[in-house]
């Protein structure tokens, strides 16, 4: 069991892993009925003259967690940002190929990027709460998208999101305190609450735990498990342990190409591509 061998060096998580492995098996059984939320076909990305991604193809399964792994600079974050067109912000970035959300091409001229991003949310590497109160952070999304008419409705959504993000109990007495006063892990959960406050169908997470300590990381991972009941999650992670713990599907990126994609179990236990094997066994990375 290669997977086990790798994660064994984290002492506190043995039980956890067994439980999650079981979960992972369980979810695999439901795979057959799962439909496809997003697809990428032949996606290539160029920054000016430089090609960052070459011919990426992947299906993202609805209400499951897909992990994107690979060595630094392999293009996994670039690909993630293509999924809600955050690359549009970068000058000179060009994308070819097709990415569809519920069968609809998100790069079609008729698609409004603002509207797209309200359906595909994102959580960043470093927690980035707005320098406002906790409440205002969560109320921001519903307000700009006009999801609520009254203050009461906004409050309702905000509390619901904070509860979903497992943060409400910790902050309910100081909803109007500055968000920047929270701890790193709390800030990141606030960012997740902020992202889910507008009911996105898909949540992109770009190494959401890389700036957090192991305890905060565990809380976020638990939260992801709960969220996946309603939301499709795609997570870019540096940690193979994390990928194996939380995801049902894994895509392995290597130097701008998708070397291998499959169920997490298959990728970690029986990788087909030699590059994947080398990476998983820790020969490079």
């Amino acid at each position, binding site marked *: 069991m290669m997977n086990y061998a790798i994660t064994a060096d984290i002492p506190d998580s043995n039980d956890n892993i067994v439980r999650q492995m079981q979960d992972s098996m369980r979810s695999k059984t439901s795979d057959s009925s799962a439909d496809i939320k997003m697809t990428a076909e032949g996606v290539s990305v160029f920054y000016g003259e430089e090609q960052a991604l070459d011919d990426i193809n992947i299906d993202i399964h609805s209400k499951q967690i897909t992990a994107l792994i690979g060595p630094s600079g392999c293009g996994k974050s670039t690909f993630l940002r293509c999924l809600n067109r955050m690359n549009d912000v970068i000058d000179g970035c060009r994308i070819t190929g097709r990415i569809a*959300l519920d069968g609809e091409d*998100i790069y079609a001229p*008729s*698609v*409004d990027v*603002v*509207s797209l991003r309200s*359906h595909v949310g994102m959580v960043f590497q470093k927690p980035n709460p707005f320098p406002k109160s906790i409440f205002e952070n969560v109320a921001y999304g519903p307000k700009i*998208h*006009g999801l609520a008419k009254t203050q009461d409705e906004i409050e309702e959504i905000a509390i619901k999101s904070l509860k979903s993000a497992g943060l409400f109990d910790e902050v309910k007495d100081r909803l109007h305190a500055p968000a920047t006063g929270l701890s790193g892990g709390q800030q990141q959960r606030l960012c997740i609450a902020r992202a889910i406050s507008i009911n996105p169908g898909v949540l992109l997470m770009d190494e959401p735990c890389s700036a957090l300590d192991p305890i905060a990381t565990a809380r976020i991972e638990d939260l992801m498990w709960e969220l996946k009941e309603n939301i499709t999650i795609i997570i870019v992670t540096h940690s193979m342990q994390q990928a194996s713990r939380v995801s049902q599907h894994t895509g392995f990126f290597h130097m701008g190409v998708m070397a291998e994609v499959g169920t997490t179990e298959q990728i970690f236990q029986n990788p087909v591509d030699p590059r994947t094997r080398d990476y998983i066994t820790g020969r490079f990375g």
Partner: protein
Amino acid sequence: MLTTNKKRLRKRHRAETRFRAYGVLSLLVAVGILFTLIYSIVTHGYSAFYRTTLLLDIELDPERIAVSPPYSRSALMQGRYSSLVKRGLYALFPEVTDRRDRRELTALLSPGAELAVRDYLIDHPDSLGTTIVLEVPMSSDYDQLYKEHLPRSGENLRFSEQQLQWFDRLLQEGRIRYRFNTQFLFGADSRYPELAGIAGAVVGSFYALLVCFLLSFPLGIAAATYLEEFAPKTRLTRIIEANINNLAAVPSVIFGLLGLAIFLNVFGLPRSTPLVGGIVLSLMTLPTIIIATRASIRSVSPGIRQAGLAMGASPVQVVFHHVLPVALPGTLTGTIIGLAQALGETAPLLMIGMVAFIANVPATPLDASAALPVQIFLWAESAERGFVEKTSAAIMVIMMFLIMMNLLAVIIRSKTQSKVE
């Protein structure tokens, strides 16, 4: 699914477009005003670099000049030339004999005409006794008439009917020339627009900036070095730092009051001189230089300091041999920018008396002198029409100097950047 709630989205996008348009509009206004300003200055000013001259045949008669041999330079300087010029002019209009008419006729000539004859004679003493053909400056009104800055008809006309006729006749005969005005670039100020030059102001500004540089550059570097490298983190240091930042924002007119009350009245330094001007400007430039130097000292990597100390160099040696040379380009850039600001400062110079009318080019920083921005102010306040173009042209000159200084700063900055990369 991606196109739900279309109405609201359209509204949000309209807000976006509007917001963006405000930005574009603001920039257009700012840049538009810049071009309007430049256009207004250049169109008013370019003609000052030219002036109209009148071609006269002048008989250099020693008796009329009232000089006797030997014809030394000083003797020629004291000669009388006005009748020579007038005779040359009358010769062109033999029919004008009436005294009053003749006075009207001589109004065509600038008082500078006789000086032009004198200067010619001093350069060519051999031509005494011969008849020469010389271009002499015309008076400002006719200069402006030629340049079409003054109307030929209407109210408050500055010309009589016959004066206009004479002017047109001279024009037809080809006696009126339009020449590059070297006197404007190389002469000193004058009450007569057609004779006024900016050299006095340029030299005055140069001396003031020189004094300013000699004082503020070493003091600025020394202060910045102390604050960055040696100052203990004490209350005094914090006070000094706050002080420098505040000093940078004190209105310039206050520095003028300081110069007047302390340098002129208490220390009794000579009024109206570039020396005092330079001292006052240096106090204003000092904060700029200190702030720029500190920033560039701070950007020197600490590794260099440690390497120097590890070699057994003293802290002072490390700073002077290793840190300051690396920080020098940034310091120079800051200094040039500070000096460029100082070049444009007007109010403090007005108050220490550099506003006096000085008709010669200063020889040393201790001579009373004008300065470029003050000259602009003086000419701008003059009533004569001829000074409008002079003012604009002087602005073109000062802007040229400013642009050159800024280019120098940009070049230094880009050179060092490419070296670091």
